């Protein structure tokens, strides 16, 4: 690891996206129903997301925010309706889309016994990231310091969240799906997260964020939708928060 002890001077260079192939719209859902354990978590959701958007999903607990993100990542089967993500029809195959999607769920997906660097290297390697790109991802989330060689099991919740975000950055995905990404992060971490997401969108990624922190995420978002009862409703910008 060449950058292990050094900091990257300009963090703004660090968010890179693998753009091939370019597809519009990035996400298109029509009447999508998804079922978990017999319960319809999505009850006929319609949604279109375009490239470069930062979309905020809001709504009460159990509205279907997490499920919508998991469906877009190809984790939930489409029971009814049509879901097309990055040009792939999810009813046909839920696997093809996955190489281009990065997801941060409630859990971090980290290996507790491995160090921060090990984790980021592993997740970066799943998309063939170079050493430089991995170092940049660590630096982007402020982890290119003494934390880099600490096992994840010894980190605080906020530091783990940062590590998971660094893994996500290293994946250079086209579609970023984040479930409550601000939860557990300290103030500096939140600022870095927001900056990272803006950079990603500017670089051509599409970002979908489910969040309870409406003020924070609302300032970040370019568009807001409201979920309720497994359905999606458009919220006009500048409308009631």
């Amino acid at each position, binding site marked *: 690891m060449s950058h292990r002890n050094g900091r990257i001077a300009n963090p703004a260079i660090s968010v890179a996206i693998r753009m091939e192939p370019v597809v519009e719209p990035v996400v298109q859902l029509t009447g999508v129903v998804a079922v978990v354990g017999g319960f319809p978590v999505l009850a006929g959701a319609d949604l279109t997301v375009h490239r470069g958007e930062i979309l905020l999903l809001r709504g009460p607990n159990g509205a279907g925010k997490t499920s919508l993100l998991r469906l877009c990542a190809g984790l939930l089967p489409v029971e009814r309706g049509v879901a097309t993500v990055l040009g792939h029809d999810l009813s046909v195959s839920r696997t093809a889309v996955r190489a281009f999607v990065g997801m941060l769920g409630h859990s971090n997906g980290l290996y507790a*016994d491995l160090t921060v660097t090990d984790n980021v290297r592993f997740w970066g390697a799943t*998309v063939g990231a170079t050493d430089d790109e991995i170092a940049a991802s660590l630096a982007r989330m402020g982890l290119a310091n003494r934390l880099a060689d600490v096992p994840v099991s010894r980190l605080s919740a906020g530091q783990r969240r940062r590590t998971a975000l660094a893994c996500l950055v290293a994946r250079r995905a086209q579609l970023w799906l984040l479930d409550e990404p601000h939860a557990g992060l300290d103030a500096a971490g939140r600022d870095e997260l927001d900056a990272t997401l803006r950079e990603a969108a500017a670089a051509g990624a599409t970002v979908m964020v489910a969040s309870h922190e409406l003020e924070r995420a609302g300032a970040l978002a370019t568009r807001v939708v409201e979920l309720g009862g497994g359905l999606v409703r458009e919220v006009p910008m500048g409308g009631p928060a």
Partner: protein
Amino acid sequence: MTTWRVARLVAAKDLRIEARSRVVVNQVLPFSLLVMVLFAFALDNDTVLTRVAPGLVWLATLFSMLVLVQRAFAVETADGALDALTVAGVRPSGLFLGKAMAMAVQLVVLEVVLLFAAIVLYKVDVGGAGIVLLVTTFVAATTGLAFVGTLYGGLASGAKGRETLLPLLMLPVVAPVLIGATRATEAALGTNGASPSEGWPWIGLLVLFAALFGAGGTLAFGTLIDA
């Protein structure tokens, strides 16, 4: 990424986790040695012990393997890493082969330690003509066990009651390995006057077993872990 590169990546990751956590060395190995000592208590007869030593080595391997498989998939499910691997579009075939490779390395270490335990505790003689057969047996049997362990471990990993489901599914399937590896090891060690030439047909069975479950697991793993 090709299947093979995923496999190497996943295997290296699993072995690094073991190198950092030492769960197998500090917990599974002592457990398997304890099993060997308990066999001696239960059988309570030196001649019998020497005679049944090959079977006991493989039986202890199977029991320890249950723990090993649970551990290999607990690592993946503890913080949602298996989900993340699925989202990341990591090829399931590569994931299967990688986890099986890491499992095989850990199993071989375990088996060698158990063989030494048999030499020390059960007065087993190793050496001479049977050594080639012995090494071949270990390689072939371990490969088959690693494939079956990964296959059923992956299936059970997302399930409620996985601790009880795994032995129910896995132990009947590995019975041919237990029989084949035991006979081949007996032949290699000359237990009961067996000669190495009697062991080679069993190697055929072990190789066939490993090939069938290796191929089947590579094809089916993606479906089995898709929760």
